[in-house]
């Protein structure tokens, strides 16, 4: 069904564009420079990877490669997101195809964990350890030269110093999540895999974590995280990977993806001083597919967004109508996601 | 919603058939203004629900196999006893000896089905309590018009009644069997009636004690397999210890271990109620007064009840 618009199956995979937005908010304390990935290799790469259990195909021939920056992994429940994350984490063998971390095969290759930080959603944290002990436990297993300092830094990064010496069993859900993140970051990895990282966090911690991940991405790290909260993905991710029924439905910047959906006319809500007059002025132009005057102001459906956007200010000035608001209604990540998974 | 036509618009005059004018009824959300029966009703509803769940009624077929299977195994010996009795009575004088020798009289019936009752408790109690804890259903119960004590009372009460049914059914069959097979029903009824209080008394003790033990143990072990194993251990092991103690030890230390064994306590009360010799060596060896056994049984029920209430008072829903 999706022949109507060419889905860019990128041959030369576009490196996830380095984030053009400056990393807002507080920068994490300057971490030591991440160990360089193998030259020319992508942080995370799937090459025609599939995974099935008997006849059930969980992941069906998916290829993508991610460089520095933040990528959001999206998909309805049961679409195969967790299977992809497990394969990328080297915890699950692909039935066919290759999964590599910094150029190295992920499956049965513990050395990838030197460069890979993991925050799995399912992983339970041992309740009897304190936050500090858990971080130091991870640091020692990574054979870090100074595990205590590394643990302290990781705990500071996730703002857990206050509760570091309480056992994790007494932590709230959000604090347990931050302890897990501290454990996953303690060896300062250049590549990060996070499965619903903000689950259970309160608004303040959420903002802090978003700023943290943005800052880490701007240091050149490759970050892949899955989430169901699209507001967060929209704010944090440079590009998105949408998985649906085990297939890669879309990949890249969601605004570009929306523009590629030429089969869905773009809907724009306009509030102006005189909606009816503006409507009559806009109608003659061929880019206007439909107009509706309703309580939410003037709704225009246009097949050619760019042309209409140039037309609007000129037509309004000609008609002497003041424009107060111009809102594209169906361009949010929510809508794009809904369109992708509803085909 | 289309025009808000009052629900149940009166049909027109043409004999109450379909309203000729046609009307659209409001399918929107209707508030409930029926009766609200409050806490007591909720407790009774939970108790009856518990009894039904114990027998797997209202659940799939699979849930009925164990309870009904065990209940059937409890009834079979009673039916056999009644059959023997009926044949014996037909055979006139010679039959009288046979009737007396019949293995199953009221007093021995409890002993005969004891194992079945233990299995029933061990299998069904976890079914009631384990699931509520393991799947956090408790938070749904406690957020309703019930207090936590109501939940406990309803669950224990319901389970004890279910056991009572299991235990009294065979007795009822033997009781009816005796009367119906007797040539002179009124006379037979006359001399069977005085036994009734003993039957019911022992039934209540058995259901209360075993029910309380099973429910309390499964309240502390949400996982079904462990709960069943634990209940069997609590009911089966003490009699073995009492047995060993009685043989191995001469001193009176052994006498008191018999009180830890629910099985022996019930044998003792059964013997006193029907005034027959208790067929349990430790009980005979301990030679304790009957009031001690009754006190132990009732005391145990009270203590277990308190433990249960405290457990559910402090459990985090």
């Amino acid at each position, binding site marked *: 069904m999706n022949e109507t618009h060419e889905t860019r199956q990128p041959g030369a995979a576009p490196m996830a564009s380095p984030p053009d937005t400056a990393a807002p908010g507080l920068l994490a304390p300057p971490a030591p420079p991440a160990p360089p990935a193998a030259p020319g290799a992508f942080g995370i790469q799937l090459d025609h990877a599939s995974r099935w*259990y008997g006849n059930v195909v*969980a992941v069906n021939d998916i290829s993508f490669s991610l460089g520095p920056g933040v990528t959001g992994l999206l998909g309805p*429940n*049961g*679409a*195969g*997101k*967790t*299977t992809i*994350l*497990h394969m990328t*984490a*080297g*915890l*699950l*063998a692909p039935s066919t195809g290759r999964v590599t971390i910094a150029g190295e095969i992920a499956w*049965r290759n*513990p*050395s*990838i*964990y*030197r460069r*890979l930080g*993991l925050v*799995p959603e*399912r*992983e*339970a*944290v*041992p309740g*009897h*350890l304190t936050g500090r002990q858990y971080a130091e*436990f*991870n640091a*020692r*297993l*990574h*054979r*870090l*030269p100074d*595990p205590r300092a590394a643990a302290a830094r990781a705990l500071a990064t996730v703002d857990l110093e206050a509760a570091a010496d309480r056992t994790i069993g007494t932590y709230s859900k959000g604090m347990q999540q931050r302890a897990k993140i501290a*454990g996953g970051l303690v060896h300062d990895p250049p590549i990060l895999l996070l499965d619903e990282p903000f689950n259970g966090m309160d608004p303040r911690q959420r903002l802090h974590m978003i700023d943290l991940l943005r800052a880490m991405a701007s240091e050149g790290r490759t970050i892949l995280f899955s989430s169901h909260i699209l507001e967060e993905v929209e704010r944090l991710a440079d590009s998105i990977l949408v998985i649906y029924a085990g297939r890669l439905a879309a990949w890249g910047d969601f605004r570009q993806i929306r523009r590629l959906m030429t089969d869905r006319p773009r809907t724009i809500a306009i509030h102006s001083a005189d909606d009816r007059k503006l409507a009559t002025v806009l109608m003659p132009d061929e880019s206007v597919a439909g107009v509706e005057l309703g309580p939410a102001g003037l709704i225009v459906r246009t097949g050619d967004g760019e042309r209409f956007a140039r037309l609007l200010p000129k037509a309004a000035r000609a008609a002497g109508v003041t424009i107060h608001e111009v809102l594209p209604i169906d361009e949010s990540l929510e809508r794009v996601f809904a369109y992708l998974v509803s085909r | 919603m289309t025009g808000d036509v009052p629900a149940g618009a009166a049909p027109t005059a043409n004999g109450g058939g379909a309203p000729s004018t046609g009307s659209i009824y409001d399918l929107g959300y209707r508030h409930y203004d029926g009766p609200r029966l409050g806490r007591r009703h909720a407790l009774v509803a939970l108790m009856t629900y518990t009894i039904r769940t114990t027998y797997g009624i209202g659940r799939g077929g699979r849930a009925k196999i164990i309870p009904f299977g065990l209940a059937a195994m409890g009834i079979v010996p009673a039916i056999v006893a009644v059959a023997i009795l009926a044949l014996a009575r037909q055979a006139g004088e010679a039959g009288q000896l046979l009737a007396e020798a019949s293995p199953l009289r009221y007093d021995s019936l409890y002993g005969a089905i004891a194992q079945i009752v233990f299995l029933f408790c061990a299998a069904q109690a976890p079914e009631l309590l384990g699931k509520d804890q393991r799947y956090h259903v408790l938070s749904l119960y406690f957020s309703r018009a019930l207090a936590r004590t109501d939940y406990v009372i309803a669950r224990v009460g319901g389970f004890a009644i279910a056991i009572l049914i299991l235990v009294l059914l065979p007795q009822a069959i033997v009781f009816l069997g005796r009367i119906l097979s007797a040539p002179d029903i009124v006379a037979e009824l006359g001399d069977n009636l005085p036994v009734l209080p003993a039957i019911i008394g022992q039934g209540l003790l058995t259901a209360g004690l075993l029910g309380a033990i099973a429910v309390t143990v499964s309240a502390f072990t949400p996982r079904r397999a462990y709960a069943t194993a634990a209940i069997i251990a609590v009911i089966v092991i003490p009699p073995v210890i009492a047995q*060993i*103690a009685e043989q*191995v*030890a*001469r*001193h009176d*230390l*052994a006498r008191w271990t018999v009180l830890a064994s629910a099985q022996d306590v019930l044998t003792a009360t059964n013997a006193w109620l029907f005034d027959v010799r208790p067929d349990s060596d430790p009980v005979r060896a301990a030679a304790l007064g009957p009031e001690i056994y009754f006190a132990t049984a009732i005391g145990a029920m009270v203590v277990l009840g308190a433990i249960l209430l405290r457990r559910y008072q402090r459990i985090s829903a």
Partner: protein
Amino acid sequence: MSAVSVIWTIAQATFRALLGRRRTILMGLLALVPVLVALLSRVAGDGVADDRAILDLLIIRTVLPLTALVFGTTALGSELDDGTGVALLTKPIPRWHIVLAKIVVAGIVTAVFTAVSAVVTGILLGTAGETLVAYVVGVIVGAFAYATAFVAVSVITTRALVVGLVYTLLWEGWLAGILPGTKSLSLREATLGVIDAVSPPAVVRDGLDLQGSLTLIVVVLVAGSVLGAMRLARYQVKGGD
């Protein structure tokens, strides 16, 4: 950070995980059973019962295998099931470090619980010092053999507890009685063989001799560790959507 310190880190965490409050009490009670029986027979009994028979029945046949079963299957198996094991797997350390640490800890904890129970029971039964030493040695060797076997099983299947129960109750218990051949694969017989070698009993048993016992124990120790490590290397997280 040498291999030893990594293994020690895992071991420390495993000790803490295994000796949770509830499990420690439970295993303490199990270890108490032979002591109680010994106490009872000493206080209330007349003659002194055959101490070796009680030690064999209650310690070697019951407390040792069951303690090893619980600690062996939970040391690694429970972490793989509840997800905390992922923290170990996603570390740049060889898999045999993990398995070795788990076996050592399970072995030590089993040995401690069982040996203490054996010694206290022996003293109460008035067992000769030399026999007691034999039992302690046997218990330690048996503990590590059982622990290795059960840790390996817990990586291979999630039903390790059931498999372990079937092995101890059916294979070593019931079948051993009927088919003498099974003795050569029974860790219980191997443990008894070691004990008899250290302090020969009055009546010679027809179980495994020392040489047979030691070969079985060494085979179990090596095979268990290697198999466990290889299997852990290929361990895959289940399902997920």
